[in-house]
């Protein structure tokens, strides 16, 4: 058993690594720039010019650690330069990548990019009608869109002799550089892979090593240490889910056993119908109805508070607070529990029915053992396999929380924390939650395996020789 557990743990580490890589890769592919989101949160800041806007962007990226290369290395077509990560702005980096992907000839694309920058610098001294279409070029990679901007600038110069005098050469350089790209692509380099080593000072490495030290980084949204945010969310999610799990299993197991004992009886049929009806009711609907009926005076049954976890301050006496919190979590726990009753009880019932048909059960009865002892001492343990499988899946679900229940009842749990983090592209929080869920999933599977062995001594973990 120990050897088996150690083997499983050894397999677990590469799985964890793979999950982390997948999550990291997905975060880089998701739309949205966390730096832009951070800078534009709340009221839009004013900038005294593009230079200042770029400086602000670079500062924010540096503070968030997003100015570093994403990974240890890149394996990309040889056409892509190894210094692209030095361009701070994500949107411009993406545009250049797309241009390289289309034409391959990085030196010409670089020259074109520099000519946009030079033209922009020359326009910083005074107003220019070309500033708008020029800045658009930073974000355009399609031929039609680029040519439209170049044509617009050309037309403006033709109409405005003063502007023509100032910026004719800059615009000409832009057009020439672009035409060069189109005329002299180097697509061959796109089919040739190139390995580029970025070093250990990269986003993924910093995050991974921090995680092994217990430092999950800081949240992009509010700068709080991620572990503190998770601690706050986990506390309530754990309480709610542990109570819900205990209630679910505590109610479902006896119901399943009694149904199996009385298979086909009125009790069996009526509990099945009732539990499946409950199972079919959507939790958000039930939660809302419970809230409307039992927390507002509209129907004269405002027995529970509407939302939150307590009305009393943290300094209130312990028992008063406990009572108050119990009243607050009653309805959420009901919502978390009712849906799983049908599934667990049916699993228990099915397992029991299989076991009750066995010869040794008939023998036990024939020996005159009391029925209660036959059921709970002999049959129950052997019927636990499906339940043990379910127990394994409880571990990650304890952490997950239910975002629907948390939002409706105003509980600041893990579900809401995770969903809010995803929408806000708060990747440090998302990664931390994902890694914790992975660890708990594996832990759950290991616990299930151990419980199988306990439930049925015939279970062995070694390979059969």
């Amino acid at each position, binding site marked *: 058993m120990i050897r088996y557990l150690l083997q499983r743990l050894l397999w677990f580490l590469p799985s964890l690594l793979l999950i982390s890589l997948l999550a990291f890769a997905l975060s880089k592919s998701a*739309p*949205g*720039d966390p730096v832009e*989101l*951070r800078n534009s*949160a*709340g*009221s*839009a*800041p*004013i*900038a*005294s010019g*593009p230079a*200042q806007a770029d*400086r*602000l962007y670079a*500062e924010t990226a540096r*503070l968030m650690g997003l100015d570093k290369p994403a990974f240890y290395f890149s394996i990309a077509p040889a056409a892509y330069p190894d210094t692209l990560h030095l361009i701070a702005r994500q*949107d411009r980096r993406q545009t250049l990548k797309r241009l390289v992907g289309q034409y391959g000839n990085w030196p010409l694309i670089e020259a074109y990019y520099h000519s946009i920058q030079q033209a922009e610098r020359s*326009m910083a001294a005074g*107003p*220019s*009608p070309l*500033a*708008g*279409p020029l*800045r*658009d070029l930073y*974000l355009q990679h399609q031929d039609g*869109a680029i040519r*439209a*901007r170049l044509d*617009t600038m050309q037309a403006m110069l033709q109409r*405005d002799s003063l502007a023509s005098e100032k910026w004719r050469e800059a615009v000409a350089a832009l057009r020439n550089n672009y035409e060069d790209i189109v005329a002299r692509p180097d697509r061959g380099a796109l089919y040739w892979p190139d390995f580029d080593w970025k070093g250990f000072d990269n986003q993924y490495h910093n995050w991974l090593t921090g995680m092994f030290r217990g430092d999950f980084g800081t949240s992009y*949204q*509010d*700068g*709080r240490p991620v572990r503190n*945010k998770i601690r*706050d*969310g986990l506390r309530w999610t754990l309480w709610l889910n542990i109570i819900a799990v205990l209630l679910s299993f505590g109610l479902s197991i006896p119901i399943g056993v009694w149904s199996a004992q009385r298979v086909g009886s009125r009790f069996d049929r009526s509990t099945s119908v009732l539990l499946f009806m409950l199972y079919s009711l959507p939790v958000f609907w039930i939660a809302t109805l419970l*809230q*409307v009926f039992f*927390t*507002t005076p509209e129907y004269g049954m*405002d027995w529970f*508070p*509407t*939302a*939150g*976890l307590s009305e009393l*301050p*943290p300094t209130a006496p312990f028992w008063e607070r406990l009572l108050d919190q119990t009243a607050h979590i009653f309805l959420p726990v009901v919502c978390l529990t009712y849906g799983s009753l049908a599934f667990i009880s049916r699993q228990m019932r099915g397992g029991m029915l299989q076991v009750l048909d066995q010869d040794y059960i008939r023998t036990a009865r024939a020996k005159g053992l009391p029925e209660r002892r036959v059921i709970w001492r002999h049959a129950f343990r052997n019927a636990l396999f499906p339940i043990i499988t379910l127990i394994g899946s409880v571990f990650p679900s304890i952490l997950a929380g239910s975002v629907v229940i948390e*939002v*409706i009842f*105003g*509980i*600041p749990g893990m579900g*809401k924390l995770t969903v809010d983090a995803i929408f806000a592209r708060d990747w440090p929080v998302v990664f931390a939650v994902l890694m914790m869920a992975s660890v708990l999933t594996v832990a759950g599977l290991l616990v299930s395996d151990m419980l199988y062995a306990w439930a049925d001594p015939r279970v062995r973990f070694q390979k059969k020789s």
Partner: protein
Amino acid sequence: MKTTAALPFFLFLVLITAFSGCKREPAVEYKRTDNTVIVGMPADADRLNPLLATTAYARTVHEQIFSYLVAQDPVTGAFLPQLAKSLPERKETAEGQVAYTFEIREEAKWDDGAPVTAADFIFTLKAILNPKVAAQRIRPYMAFIKKVETDAANPRRFTVYSEKYILAEEAISAAFPVMQESHYDQAGLLKGIPLDQFLQPEVIAGLAETNENLGKFAEAFSSEKYSREKGGVTGSGPYRLESWETGQRIALVKKENWWGEKLGKSNPAFAAYPDQITFKILPDAVTTLNSIKAEEIDAVSNIDPKDYIDLENVASVSDRYAFASPLALSNLFIYVNATHPILSDKLVRKALSHAVNAQEIIDNVFYGLGQPVNGPAHPSTNYYHKGLKPVEFNVEKAKSLLTQAGWTDSDNNGYVDKDINGVRTELKINYLMNASRETSKNVALLLQDNAKKAGIHIELVAKDPLQIIDDIKKKNYDIAGGGRSASNTLWDPMQSWHTAGDNRTGFGTPETDALIEEIQVTMDEKARNEKYKKLQEAIYEEQVEVYLFVPQDRVLIHKRFEAEAHSVFPGFSVHRFRLKK
């Protein structure tokens, strides 16, 4: 005789009838009668460090804890001196700069009894300008400050020299509160670095790499102690942070013997009536509704429009809450990409505007809670161009404009088309809408339906909001729903309307750019308002944004308090809630 005898009886009957007709309604009983205000808020504050906080909810909380040199009266819009004795003295210098002189009140004190001084203001500026501090939201406002001079004879008096810029005074005096140097920089890490170095971006950027004090300060300043902890978050305002249970509630308690208490009688900027203020986090709209019905909160805003209308008919709610719907400081519009080949034609854009029925959207989607507008300026401002009428919904006019632009329905399929480079092209444009919001979808459907009447084919494309923002930024869209906050004070159009700004529609000519740059430095109100109106005319003429309306906020305030709703977020000033006797 008979008449005489009957008269008392008759009078008696009259009296009985009169009294029974004057049935007294039972007095409404309130669940709570204490002087604590519970405010419902849909999201938690991110932090209570005012220089680092990014959400409007955070500001709603921390402005009860901190004081500003000058505060805006949200009801009248007037600026009132708060920490400052009076509004700043303004003087133009020979170098073309503007000098703003402030003097802090003698009575202004921190919680430890120390006076608020110019040194605290300078410290706050340094904290904002430190590149290692994540104050990106406020830092750009300080770009206009060139110098700060203190008065050696008076530690409370100082002068800020700024470039000429219309928002400079507001930015210096009301955009950030003054923070206590001795509390937030206990190790004196910034003390040794002169402010002049902070005011030069290249210098301070270089110093940030070599002087570790800047990084150490930033780390301490950004810590949870100064963002979320009782005793750590402290200011000169009337309230102190009592507790913050993340995601649940933030509790503030009125300070005893607060230095500004007596000033509240003559200056609304010092009004602080509730003994306690609790901000309760209610992320779900239905939960908020139920909390109102259960009388668990005293004030809330931004209620769903339909719920707002329905609640007015619920006696238990209307008996206990006052309803108000002030104009919000925002507007909703449709972005029109003027760089698009079809939409680059002004006639087509104008036709599109005439095909939008803003009033129908207000009535059907927002239940009448909105006011049509003609442009980006807020109707409450004195520079809002009243001479420009909101573009009327007129299908015939739209059709006529399209015909003028060469679009006709040659194939009688209900949509107009035109020969473009030898190819018969239908007038078909994509409308980007937020996939997750019901109101967004309903607006889109109404838009599509009305545009069809004018012969414009609008295809609805649902996308993730961040993807929409990305597409709009890259001008990779045709038309898209948009919204923007509006100012009830001065408006700097640089960001949204200058070609060098974050211009998302392709609007702008050298003339409008020059006009915007003039607006930025025109300090005379009358002259500036004329320029604002010219800019609004130019925007109106180009129709690069089809303005729908300014929404009306939906505010509920418990009747046990005397309070006024207003346009400034969140729609009420909780410190002004006065408990009725």
